Each structure stands twice: as structure tokens, then as C-alpha cells.
């Protein structure tokens, strides 16, 4: 068996989970399916983000940049190229966020720790202020509208009921891409490249000694991370119907850090769980109180003080050894 293939116990529980996700739209109300779509999209962003935090040991506080570039790339494709194909959106989102990540990464990977965090944040704020100020291009704080796309090269269309489209066809589309993204990321982190990243994370000097070209590996990790996050941004826009500068602001980066740590950044599946739970938490907090930020803040403070390993990390610690597959 190749070293990148997932162990049997991971397949044993991920199979049923996937089956449940496929059946779900037929049992729960459509609103729940749309809500879960948001969660899955954030989970893709979290996967990308955690390649840097969990596997390379770099805490970015500017990943809103790549999510936002992915989303704005889609809006520009609609505005200037008049396309409405989701595949074009995804391609555009990945390429644009990849290009930005390639440039920003080149500047940022020379640093680590707090300097890396501040530099990524400053660069993401440049994009935010441009999106905010150049309203004739970006719509300013009103943002840009994005109509419902056609899927699979025009084979699947939205029809009249937008909500029905989002809660069924688009949900399955998001789910399929989510599964592919998880599989690709699994292969990446278990490949020799992923091992090298972890070696850098654990001991930079030693990694350099055994011949790992540290900055080059970090840059590639940064690039992949940005592209995953950009993909999430591109998938997110049709759900939201609108892209605004909020998703470029550094506080959105903060939320990405939040849900990655909520799930547990030292595990592969932690960020996915964290993103989905965070999405529910935020949605219900916003729906029930104007003080939702306080609810999130308190959860975060309690989490950091009491459960630093995150949800998945804590569950794994509590489980008996043989089941430790998560």
C-alpha cells in the first residue's frame, strides 16, 4: 500500500460520514443544507489554512486575502467576461488566488512567527483597502453581485427556484469538490513534500541540514494554501450571491484561525470539523442575539484556556488507542 493511501480505519468512518452527507438533503429542510454548504466551503479554506499552521508551523493572519481574491475573481469574471459557468469561476478563483499567494508568499516566507503573521496581515489589508476604496471597480462597501451559475459546463442550470438550486444541485457540487479537496490535501500532507514541511515545522535547522530547502518548501506550501482558500472563496460567492470587502478584512482571517484551532490544528480532520461547527455557531449566535461577537469571543477564550487541542484533538485523546484514526 502506498504511504499516501489513508489507513483502513479512516476509510471505515469516513465512508458512512460521506453517505450521510449525500442522503442529508433528502431528509433535512433545505435551509439546513444551504447552511451545511457554507460549512463545507469554510472547511476547504480551513484545510488550506492548516497546511501552513498545522503542517508548516506558520500562523497567517492574512488568509482573508486569498478567500477574498477567489471571491472577487468570480465577481470580475461575471462583470467583465459575462460568463456564468461555475467551472470558469473555480478556475478563475484558483488562478487568481494562486497568483496573489505566489507573490505574497515570496515576501512572507522569509519570516516566521509574529513577523510572518503581521506581514501577511498587512498585505491582506492592502487588498481590503483597495476593494474598499476603488468602488467603481469593486462596488466599494456595497460589493458586487454574482448570479447563480450554471454547473458542469451548462448541463445543470439554476431554473426559477434559486433556493432549491442551492440546497440540492449546488450542495452536491460543493460536496463533490469538498471530497476532492480533502483527498488532494490528504495526499499532499502524507507525501514526501508534506513530511518535509513537518520536518521544517519541528526543527528548521535540522531540516536544512538534511537538505531541505526551507524557504522553497514554505513558499510552495503557501501557494497551495492560498489556492485552496481561493477555491473556497470562489465556491462561497454563489452561495452568498454577493461579495463585499468584509471577506478581505483581517478579522475574517482571525475567524479562520479561530475555527482551525476550534477543531484542532494538530490533526488532519480537526480544521474541517472546526469550520463546520464554527459556521453553525456563528449562524445561530447571529440569529439569536445582537451580541454574537461576544458569544464567539467567549467560546474562543474558553477554548484557548481549557481545550487548546481543539475538539478533534481532545476527542482523540479521550478515545481508546485503537480507534485513534481521526
Amino acid at each position, binding site marked *: 500500500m502506498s504511504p499516501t493511501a489513508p489507513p483502513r480505519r479512516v476509510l471505515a468512518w469516513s465512508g458512512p460520514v460521506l453517505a450521510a452527507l449525500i442522503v442529508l438533503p433528502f431528509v433535512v429542510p433545505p435551509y439546513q443544507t444551504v447552511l451545511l454548504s457554507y460549512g463545507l466551503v469554510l472547511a476547504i479554506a480551513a484545510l488550506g489554512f492548516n497546511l501552513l*499552521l498545522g503542517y508548516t508551523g506558520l*500562523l497567517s*493572519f492574512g488568509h482573508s486575502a486569498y478567500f477574498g481574491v477567489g471571491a472577487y475573481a468570480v465577481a470580475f469574471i461575471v462583470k467583465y467576461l459575462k460568463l456564468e459557468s461555475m467551472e470558469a469561476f473555480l478556475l478563475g478563483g484558483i488562478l487568481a488566488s494562486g497568483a496573489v499567494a505566489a507573490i505574497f508568499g515570496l*515576501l512572507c516566507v*522569509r*519570516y516566521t*512567527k*509574529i*513577523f510572518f*503573521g*503581521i*506581514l501577511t*496581515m*498587512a*498585505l491582506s*489589508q*492592502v487588498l481590503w*483597502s*483597495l476593494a*474598499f*476604496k*476603488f468602488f467603481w471597480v469593486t462596488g466599494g462597501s456595497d460589493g458586487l453581485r454574482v448570479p447563480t451559475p450554471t454547473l458542469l459546463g451548462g448541463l445543470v442550470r439554476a431554473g426559477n427556484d434559486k433556493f432549491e438550486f442551492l440546497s440540492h444541485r449546488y450542495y452536491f457540487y460543493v460536496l463533490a469538490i469538498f471530497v476532492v479537496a480533502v483527498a488532494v490535501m490528504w495526499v499532499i500532507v502524507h507525501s514526501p513534500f508534506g513530511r518535509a514541511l513537518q520536518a521544517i515545522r519541528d526543527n528548521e535547522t535540522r531540516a536544512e541540514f538534511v537538505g531541505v530547502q526551507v524557504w522553497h518548501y514554505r513558499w510552495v506550501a503557501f501557494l497551495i494554501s492560498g489556492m485552496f482558500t481561493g477555491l473556497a472563496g470562489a465556491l462561497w460567492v454563489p452561495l452568498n450571491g454577493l461579495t463585499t470587502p468584509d471577506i478581505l478584512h*483581517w*478579522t475574517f482571517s*482571525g475567524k479562520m*484561525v*479561530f475555527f482551525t*484551532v476550534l477543531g484542532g490544528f494538530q490533526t488532519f480532520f480537526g480544521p474541517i470539523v472546526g469550520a463546520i461547527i464554527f459556521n453553525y455557531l456563528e449562524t445561530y449566535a447571529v440569529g439569536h442575539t*445582537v*451580541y*454574537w*461577537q*461576544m458569544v*464567539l*469571543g*467567549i*467560546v*474562543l*477564550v474558553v*477554548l*484557548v*484556556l481549557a481545550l*487548546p487541542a481543539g475538539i478533534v484533538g481532545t476527542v482523540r485523546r479521550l478515545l481508546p488507542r485503537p480507534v485513534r484514526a481521526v
Partner: protein
Amino acid sequence: MDLATLVVHLLNALLYASVMFLIAGGLSLIYGVMRIVNLAHGNLYAFGAYVTAWAVGRALGTATEASLWMYALLPVGAVAAALLGAVLEPTLLRPLYRRAEEYQLLITFGLLLILEDVMRLLWGPYPLQASALYEALGSLTIGESIYPTYNLAVVVIGGVAAAGLWAFVYRTHFGVVLRATSQNMRMASALGVNVNRVYVQAFTLGCFMAGLGGSVIVPQQGAVLGMGVDALILAFVVVVIGGLGSLEGALIGALMVGLVREAGITFFPEIELAVLYLMAAVVLLIRPAGILGRA
């Protein structure tokens, strides 16, 4: 541009620099001593602004004009922010000093979210004004322009605060202990310095400065939700340019940001903020430790 206009622009730049120095100086002091980047620092600035605006509003009652004694209320916000800091450091930050810095950043981010809503809870979603203090001082004429006297007062307060802080850090016993702890916490501790106490004092002082920044600017700008988050990023720009942990650096950074911002508003309003963030990025790339920082 004639001389009078230039003077007005320079004064505006200085006004902005004074407030930025108060915020960023506090941020830098806290980082220098404790190695913590406090993401909630901007909220302490906002808290100071709100408390002062609230106090002035209560003192005014139904009156429309401010009497002179009400200027004594300006430090109230700063003291409130300092008290808040004195409570937060031992309860939330102290348990985390031995942990990875990711957690320290995260807890201050959680604190940012909480404080933002605490202010909404206490003072509601609408802006709070203290403009009576701003108007009562009247204005003076520079050439053909009219300039508010209060702005000059803010510049003076900023200057006095910078001088006071310098004297405090370099001319008092407490300053010696503070600098010693900042340079080598373990050694200072071994020599009998109560590090926990120095940390809470440094954090309180940093919060006091942020609160003072909010207090002095609130008569001119009012207190609104979200002002803290915006101010934090600009304070980052200042400390990154000047050097994280350096007070002199914060002063130079604040002056540069003040000048660029004033020039930006006049000449390139669309990219004013982008230029500021890019300045920070460029300084980080050329001199990661900032102009006066130590790595």
C-alpha cells in the same frame, strides 16, 4: 501651496501622529516587555473614548456648553482603560505565557470580539459624542484658514505624554526594572524582580496610553463601534515601521504615518490606506526589526 496651508497640513499630521503614538506606544510597550501582540489593544483605545464621551455627556446634562472644569474629565477614559487592563492581564493572559504564541494571539482576538460587544452593550449601537469640549475652545486663524484650538491641545497632550513616558521609562526605578525585564525576563526574575508584577504594570500602562489616545480624540471624532479595530491595524503599521517593542520607534513611526496619512488624504485619497499598509510591508522586508527595533 502657501505657507499657511502647509502649516495647517502639518498640524493635522501632528494631531494624527499624537493619537497614533499614544495607541502604538502602548502596544509597543506591552510587546517589548511581555512579548505579546495584543489584538484587543485597539478596543482599549475605543473603551477610553467611550468612557470619556459618556462622562462628558453625564457632566453636561442638559447644558449645551462645556465649562472649563469638564476638561478634567479627559483622563477618566484613560484611567478606565488602565483599570480594565489591570484586570485582564492576570486573569486571561497570565495563564498563557508558557504556551505557544498562537494561543496568545488567539486569546487577545477573543478579547477583541468580547470587548467590541461589551461597548455595544454598555453604550448602544449609536455613536457617542463629546463635541462640546471641542467647540468650547473655539478656533484660531492661521493665515486665511481657521484652525480648531482643540487640535493643538491634542498635539500638546501627545507631546507631553511622549516626554512623560520617556522620563518614566528612562529616569525612574520602575523604568529600570521594566527595561531589565524586557531585555531578559529570566535574569531579572533571578535577581529578585517580581516579573508578574512588572507584567501587570506594563500592561496597565500600555492600556492607559491607549485609553488616553481615545480620550483625547473623542471630542473631535466621537466614539463609534469598530473604531478600535481600525485603529489597531494602523497602530501595527506604526510599530512595524518603528520597530516592535521600541518607544522611540513608535514615535518615529507615528510621525511618518501621520505625515503620509495627511498627504494621502490630500493627494491620493483612494490609495491612502493601501500606501500605509504597503509602507509597513516594505519596512518589514527591508528591516524586519523596524527602523529602531532589535530583532
